[in-house]
């Protein structure tokens, strides 16, 4: 992302809306500028701000008078008055930033908008995590910190050594040059993203060892790590995961619950083993 210096009036409305804090008003230019290394190409500024199309020369003149008179500005805080935010054409490897940071860009690997896959959100028709298994979503950089792939690789390598099964359709997995070792492509290691999600599946009894690994590796990273863990419920709706997490010392409060209302409706589609509770 760049900010067109011919249009920018230095109002600074875009400064706080950047999730990465990558925008600042340059004292020398009196224009907002983007720190390209800090920017993750999430397009929050471009897409989230409303836009006016005022004449920049006129707006600057008004602002100069108001500043001289020490008038207190009270503008709409989410508006770019001159439509100065300008997307740039991204090339490899920088394009990876947008793929992981802008939730409205679908990943080619998953076809899903966002940074992960369907997790257990469609487990009732995919059977991705079955009885006796646990799925993990290990997210880096969110909320509001950002992550470099070199940090993410520390975790993928440690998990691979356990070993674990990486979700093959996950966007991070598709960037691995060697999946058995959890090694990522070297040309993306310096790229920064708003967040990225590593997804794995293990046998249920191995949940504690994965949690321990994530705890240990997280201490060595420069970012934050958010962890979610999932499982399939018994037919009566009970599940063994909460008790296991409590034994491990966790007191999980929030989560997602798949209601099992999905069913196969595409003619000829096959249900994975033991997946769907209901069928058409």
């Amino acid at each position: 992302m760049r900010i067109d210096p011919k249009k920018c009036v230095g109002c600074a409305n875009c400064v706080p809306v950047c999730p990465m804090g990558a925008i600042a008003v340059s004292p020398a230019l009196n224009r907002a500028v983007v720190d390209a290394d800090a920017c993750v190409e999430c397009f929050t500024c471009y897409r989230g701000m409303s836009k006016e199309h005022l004449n920049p020369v006129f707006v600057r003149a008004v602002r100069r008078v108001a500043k001289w008179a020490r008038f207190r500005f009270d503008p709409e805080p989410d508006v770019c008055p001159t439509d100065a935010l300008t997307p740039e054409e991204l090339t490899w490897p920088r394009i990876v930033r947008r793929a992981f940071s802008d939730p409205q860009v679908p990943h080619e690997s998953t076809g899903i908008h966002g940074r992960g896959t369907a997790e257990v959100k469609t487990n009732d028709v995919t059977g991705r995590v079955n009885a006796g298994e646990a799925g993990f979503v290990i997210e880096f950089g969110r909320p509001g910190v950002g992550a470099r792939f070199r940090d993410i690789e520390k975790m993928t390598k440690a998990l691979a050594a356990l070993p674990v099964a990486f979700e093959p359709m996950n966007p991070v997995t598709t960037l691995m040059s060697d999946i058995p070792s959890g090694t990522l492509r070297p040309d993306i290691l310096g790229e920064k993203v708003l967040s990225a999600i590593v997804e794995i599946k293990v046998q249920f009894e191995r949940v504690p060892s994965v949690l321990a690994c994530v705890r240990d590796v997280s201490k060595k990273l420069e970012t934050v790590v958010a962890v979610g863990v999932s499982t399939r419920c018994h037919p009566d709706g009970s599940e063994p995961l909460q008790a296991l997490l409590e034994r491990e010392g966790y007191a999980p409060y929030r989560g997602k619950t798949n209601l099992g209302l999905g069913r196969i409706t595409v003619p000829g589609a096959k249900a994975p083993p033991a997946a769907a509770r209901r069928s058409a």
Partner: protein
Amino acid sequence: MTNTLHRYSDHYAREPGEDVRPVTDDYIVFAMASKGVNDDGIVEKYRAFLKLALEHHPVNIGDATHGGWLRPQRNLTPTNHWKRGRTPDPEAVLAGIDGPSTVAAVFDKYENLKAFVDALAKADIGVSINIAAPMDAAHRCCKDTGLPRHSVEYSLGFRGRVEKLPEAKTLELSTMCGHGMVSAAFARKMLDWVKENRRTPAEAAAYLARFCSCGVFNTKRAERLLDEARSGANGHAPREDAGKPAR
């Protein structure tokens, strides 16, 4: 994407055994189809979901590819700059659905959540339906509506450099857009503006909601948080893991 999984509340910072006020005004229900499994007629299925939601008083609805019912405006002019409405536009959400996506409805009352889930079960739309909420509330809803849970996913909170996270009230606001489109700095600015009486909590919540790109931002919970911030209450500081001492 885990855009509704890790919504911050003081529960992420409680001491073991400590009682924390439950979150009782934030329940999300979302629908998601699987490619080649149940994505036939997906536009109409998602519209049916949202139309049903609108009968049960949601506080936001949205489509992950186009946003919620409060959206940025592309062509403001000096004449309408001062007349910006905060009236939700559900028709824009319904009309905007054009293919694969995820659609969601947010509720601030348990009774509305329960009634919607009950109606969804009867409607039998065919796509996967999930509740993102406190797990005890979701479990209760399943029992009340006679739906055994199929799968569960627990949020275990944050690890690593948690000192880089903002203060609790800011985090509680900004994580209501799980995609991270509501920045902590902007949430903090809105907290300050409400404290300074420059904007009402409802106005500040609407500014924040326009940045959420999938419509799961809960404006009613945001209004409550912004109003509470006037008293200076700032909640528990973030810490590692949900209710678990760092080892």
